[in-house]
């Protein structure tokens, strides 16, 4: 066959083949998810937007008037932004010369005037103040962790992997303190469903006003409210019907585990403020348009007192991409979207 005729036929055949694959692929929100939402109209309006110079920012904390952003790819870099999204200031944490830690895994937490740098694979924890940014090694008797939440100047809650006698790891919560006993394991709060590590993934947040911790699972409709001694206060449920994590995990001969199918996210981000729980959901309700998430993010609001559902807010998105981190402060919602930090005013 002539090369160009073959090429044309081949391109056409490939397009048809791939489109057939796409047609038969499982798409999220294609089927009804079996729940309904109460959407507050115009619950969030975009007030300000600040262009960020670099990608990969996350929210590290806030003080009275300032928002602090850390960066996943530059672990000592801290960006201070006034909450009106003006007056940005680039800061660099200073750590003693010769200190070694896993650069890209380190996260900054700001609890003004204190600032912490935590990295759980070494593990390494540093403490300093926002005034001079001089960080010093802190809490040597800690344990390995993959998530850390600062609670007070003397205590932290971590999510760590606990190995049983058979060598299977699973996530547990741990309280780390500056005095004896330094480490306190709470093995039964996070519940294993599939593999113990991936299936229990989620977000850990702390509300300073009420002293409550909140663990929200990524792949099931569940969250747990805890006190700072890791005693369960209640188990709440998000609106959707995913009681079990829909994930598939392959264990490789090297000992590493990997997803072997696209994981079905339910709750991708969460934040606690104003005695409320804000959960960014990836699922569309039956009373919403199936493309409701195309140019908005859906945030469901629950009461922190008992986990009861209150209402839903639509957060309008600009073209730049989806929310990768957010925080609520009073009647303002700050969200990192790709290369920008957006400030929304929300109704209470």
């Amino acid at each position: 066959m002539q090369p160009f005729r073959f090429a044309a036929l081949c391109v056409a055949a490939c397009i048809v083949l791939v489109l057939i694959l796409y047609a038969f692929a499982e798409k999220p929100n294609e089927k009804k998810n079996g729940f309904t939402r109460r959407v507050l109209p115009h619950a969030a309006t975009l007030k300000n937007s600040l262009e960020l110079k670099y990608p990969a920012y996350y929210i590290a904390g806030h003080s009275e008037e300032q928002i602090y952003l850390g960066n996943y790819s530059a672990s000592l870099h801290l960006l201070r932004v006034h909450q009106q999204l003006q007056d940005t200031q680039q800061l660099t944490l200073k750590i003693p010369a010769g200190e070694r830690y896993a650069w890209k895994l380190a996260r900054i937490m700001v609890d003004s005037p204190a600032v912490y740098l935590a990295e759980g694979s070494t593990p390494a924890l540093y403490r300093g103040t926002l005034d001079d940014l001089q960080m010093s090694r802190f809490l040597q008797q800690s344990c390995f962790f993959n998530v850390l939440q600062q609670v007070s100047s003397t205590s932290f809650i971590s999510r760590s992997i606990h190995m049983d006698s058979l060598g299977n790891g699973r996530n547990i919560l741990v309280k780390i303190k500056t005095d004896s006993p330094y480490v306190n394991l709470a093995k039964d709060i996070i519940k294993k469903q599939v593999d113990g590590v991936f299936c229990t993934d989620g977000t850990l947040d702390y509300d300073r006003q009420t002293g409550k911790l909140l663990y929200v699972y990524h792949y099931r409709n569940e969250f747990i409210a805890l006190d700072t001694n890791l005693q369960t206060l209640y188990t709440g449920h998000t609106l959707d019907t995913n009681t079990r994590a829909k994930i598939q995990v392959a264990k490789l001969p090297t000992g590493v585990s990997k997803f072997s199918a696209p994981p079905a996210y339910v709750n991708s981000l969460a934040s606690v403020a104003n005695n409320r729980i804000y959960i960014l959901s990836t699922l569309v309700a039956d009373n919403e348009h199936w493309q409701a998430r195309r140019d908005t993010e859906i945030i469901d609001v629950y009461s922190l007192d008992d986990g009861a559902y209150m209402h839903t807010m639509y957060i309008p998105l600009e073209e730049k991409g989806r929310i990768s981190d957010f925080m609520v402060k009073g009647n303002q919602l700050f969200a990192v979207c790709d290369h920008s930090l957006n400030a929304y005013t929300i109704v209470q």
Partner: protein
Amino acid sequence: MCQSDKKKQAAGNIQNNFLDYDSKIANECQCEPEDFPENYCVTPSVNAYSMLRKTVVETICLLFILLFVYTAVSKFIDYQNFRAVIGQSPLITRFAPVLAIVVPLAEIVIALLLVIPRYRRAGLYASFAMMTLFTVYIIVLVTLSDKIPCSCGGVISQMSWTQHLYFNIVFAALALLGMWLYTKLAHA
């Protein structure tokens, strides 16, 4: 008349081995100098062109052999990982166990076709088909899905999706060039 006969004969030879094409023409021309003015058949420019074409086609084949053998071997070495990661692609989750074997196997077969002169033409066509399929797959996946894993094998996995796209398009274009030059050589 003599010239067209030679051409037919030459074309017949190509079916077996196009590498011998130029030398055969050259030999035959030398054998029967009385039929031709000396620079009629073996004009330096024509010879240089076909030499160039041949070199280009061979370089393209070599590039494809390297590419396919390298990626196929790295897929086989890291088989469990490859199988898990292609499962993460929403388009092929269901076919991941089959594709994890079929894709690297097909790459090896195409590399073999390119190595064996008889099947080189088929090999070039198959390379083009393979690269087109990968390219269309990438375009569809990148436009329709936001988080996508990659498991193309070895260092090629380190490329970004845009780099991947350009890389694939360049290779598809090379295959097309190879197919075209090959056909021209066969009909020259």
